[in-house]
Every structure is written in C-alpha cells, then in structure tokens.
C-alpha cells in the first residue's frame, strides 16, 4: 500500500473525491464532486398537492423511501466506487429535523461501512461554495434566498457574516404560501409557477414594503395579500397573474435594496444569488439593473445548483476536508438551527 501510494503521489496531489448528502427540506439529493468537478448530482423532490405545504414527518418519509436509489444513481452516474471516495459529507443543518436526521443516518452508515471520514456541513455554506465554484465569483456579496432562508452575506475575516436577514419568514416561504392561497401547483415548484404567471401580470397592486434597516420582513406582506386576494379577484380588480407579478416585484425590490446596501458597505463589485428563489429570472434581472448602476456584476446559477442539491454539500465538504475538517460520530448530530457565521472558513485566505 505504501509503495503504491508513493508512486501515485510523486507527481501531483491525489484528487479528492467527496460525496454529499442533502435532505434538509423537501429536496433529497446526493452529489459527488472531485476537485471542483461535479461527477453526479441526482435529486428527488417531494411534491405536495396544490394548496398543501410539506410537513416534516411526510418529508422524512419521502427521503427514507428514495435515498438509497438516489445514492445508487449518484455512484452509477459518476462511475465511482465507494473505495474511490475520500469523505462522506452531509447536511448537519439548518433545516427540518426529521428530514435532516433521515438523511444523516444513511450518510453515517455508509461512512462507517466504507471506512471513510464523515463531515457535517452547514447547508448555507454549501449554497455559497457551490455558487462560487459554478460562477467563478471570487468575493461576492451573497444573497441567499430560499424557502427556509433569506440572508445577505459577505465574507470577512474567516467568516461568512450575515449583514441582513429576514426577521420572520423566508421569502420563498412567503411565495410558497401565497401559491397555496391561489392553489397554484407545487410541480416543479410553487415559485417557478408564480414566476411564469407573473410574466403575464400587467397591474402592480400596492403591497406593504417591509425593509427594516438591513433586515426584511415578509409575514405582513403575506397576511395582507392572503386577505386581499379573494376580494381583488372577485371584484376583478386584479387577476391571479397580477397578484403574482405584484408580490414578486415587491419582495424582490426589498431584497435588491438590502443587497445594494451590503455591497456599498463592503465596497463589493460582485453579487452572487444562491438558494431556490435565486433561479427566478426576474430577481436576477432586477439585481442586474441595480448592479449595472453600480458597475458591479451579478452571478447566478440555474436550477441544478440554485435549488438544494447534493453536490453543493460535497463542494463545501471538499473545501472543509482539504483544510483538515472531519466530524466525529459523537459530534454528528443534526441541528435545525445552525447560523452561517458559526462556521470558521478555513479554506479562504483572503
């Protein structure tokens, strides 16, 4: 073994291959990354009927039913054998408890069966690192927007620091719950269907605007539009398309505003949009207008990487593993709350 290792390792460092397990919300994904290259990234999404959200217990059941098939797909597509893997990364948090644990149990089991180190990854860090990897953004202000999280983040002194965030519900949660009011389909996602309907909206309905300093608030906007929707539709003052359009324009304007303020504060010329809401092209467009005015550049990814996936956990895991991180089994518990700035960013030297 040693002699073989010497022969192989003489020229250049051995590539590092990391498998990542993600299951913190309704997407279940397993991805394999080798030195920044995505070898596979299959995903299975739990889609609920129109008008219904996803509950922790049912989502956990979904993950339990599909995880072994998704894992097998990830290995097959990547043409990777367990012995080729250097590290098993999984989402430690934040997210929904039961789905997180269901996914982590399988990650812990394969790590032990294959005799590989285990690594717990912060889900938000996964989004940031995958976004940086895919887009090539070097030191961006990051807008992380999804069904569970809304944060404006900038890197400083070994931490991804949160400059602004939601003080109540996530922007994606606001959109998802609005979709339930109108019984918009959850397939492929409520946000995608709102985006398509919003393209046909013509009338901008006045909605509350919830920016509080560097933070944003969406629950009041949601309550307002939930109450107003039926009246506006019944009296033909607005179409469902108008409501989708108005809601998007309002909440995205808020996000662009706090992102711009963070950029001004940090003197940053890059914005990276990550998270499931980040694949909304209208949000990307609005961000682009703001950035152009500042001489800055917007980086965004498509639905393969914006939406929760296994490769993003593998990518953050790869960065962590190569700088010496691993997680002992006794420290591998999952946590519903796990702030982005709790993680020391050992892999960046800037």
């Amino acid at each position, binding site marked *: 073994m040693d002699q073989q290792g010497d022969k192989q390792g003489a020229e250049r460092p051995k590539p590092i291959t990391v498998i990542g397990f993600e299951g913190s919300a309704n997407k279940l994904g397993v991805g394999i990354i080798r030195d920044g290259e995505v070898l596979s990234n299959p995903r299975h999404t739990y889609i609920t009927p129109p008008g219904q959200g996803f509950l922790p217990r049912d989502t956990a059941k979904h993950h339990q039913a599909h*995880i072994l098939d998704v894992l*097998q797909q990830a290995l097959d597509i990547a043409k990777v*054998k367990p012995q080729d893997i250097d590290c098993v990364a999984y989402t430690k948090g934040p997210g929904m408890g039961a789905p997180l644990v269901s996914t*982590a149990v399988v990650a*812990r*089991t394969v790590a*032990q*069966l*294959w005799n590989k180190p285990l690594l717990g990854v912060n889900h938000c860090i996964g989004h940031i690192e995958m976004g940086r990897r895919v887009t090539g953004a070097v030191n961006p202000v990051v807008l992380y927007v999804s069904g569970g999280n809304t944060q404006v983040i900038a890197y400083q002194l070994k931490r991804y620091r949160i400059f602004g965030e939601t003080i109540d519900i996530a922007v994606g949660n606001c959109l998802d719950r609005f979709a339930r009011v109108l019984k918009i389909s959850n397939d492929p996602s409520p946000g995608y269907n709102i985006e398509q309907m919003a393209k046909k909206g013509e009338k901008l309905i006045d909605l509350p605007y919830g920016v509080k300093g560097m933070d944003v608030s969406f629950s009041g906007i949601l309550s307002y539009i939930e109450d107003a929707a039926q009246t506006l539709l019944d009296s033909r003052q607005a179409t469902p398309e108008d409501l989708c359009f108005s809601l998007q324009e309002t909440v995205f304007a808020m996000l662009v505003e706090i992102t711009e303020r963070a950029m001004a504060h940090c003197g940053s010329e890059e914005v990276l949009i990550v998270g499931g809401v980040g694949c909304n092209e209208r949000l990307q467009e609005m961000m682009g207008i703001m950035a152009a005015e500042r001489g800055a550049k917007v980086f965004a990814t498509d639905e393969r990487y914006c939406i929760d996936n296994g490769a993003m956990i593998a990518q953050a895991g790869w960065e962590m593993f190569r700088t010496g991180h691993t997680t002992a089994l006794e420290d591998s*518990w999952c946590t519903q709350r796990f702030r982005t700035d709790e993680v020391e960013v050992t892999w960046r030297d800037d």
Partner: protein
Amino acid sequence: MDESKMATSSAKQTVEEKSGLLSMELRVPFPSQQLALVAYGSLFPDPEPKKEIVKKLRVEGTELVVLFTAPQARLLRVAFHSFLDHLDMTIQTMEKFGPAEPQTD
C-alpha cells in the same frame, strides 16, 4: 362515574407521576458485532428532540440494545416510532451498500 369523569385529567397525571418513568428496551440482532456497531454509530448521535425522553444505546455481542425512558406513554411511542424508521434506514443501507461491496483495504 361522575367523580371519575370530573377528575380525569388530574387523576391521569397523578397516576403517571406516581408510577415514575416508563421504560422500554429494544434488542436488535445483527449478523456480526461489526454491523451492530455500525448501527450504533449511525443511530446514537441524534438526541431526542424532547429532553424528557431519554434514549440510551449500547452494543452487547452482536445485538444493538436500546433503552427508552419517558414520563408518558405517548412520548415513548413517538420516540420509538421514529427510532424504528431510522433503524430500518441503517439496516437497508447495510443490505445495499454493506460488506458485499468491495472494501478499500
């Protein structure tokens, strides 16, 4: 009858308080101690979400032994139910990705 109806909720609490903690032991046999240890390693790290429920795992020979204690039957059932789901996951994972797969060393 009237008396018991009126006292239902408080009487129930008193019974459970008087009887102390409920406990339940689960013994899961594995083909080898190695696999019992893998199951242990996969299932012990997550504490119960409710702190009044205590779940203690250990390996005895080739068996995984789990002791649950809780102040109420209802809580015990919830903890036990989700534990069985996770146990099933780890066993299925062993069957599909376990020792039949070639090992590194």
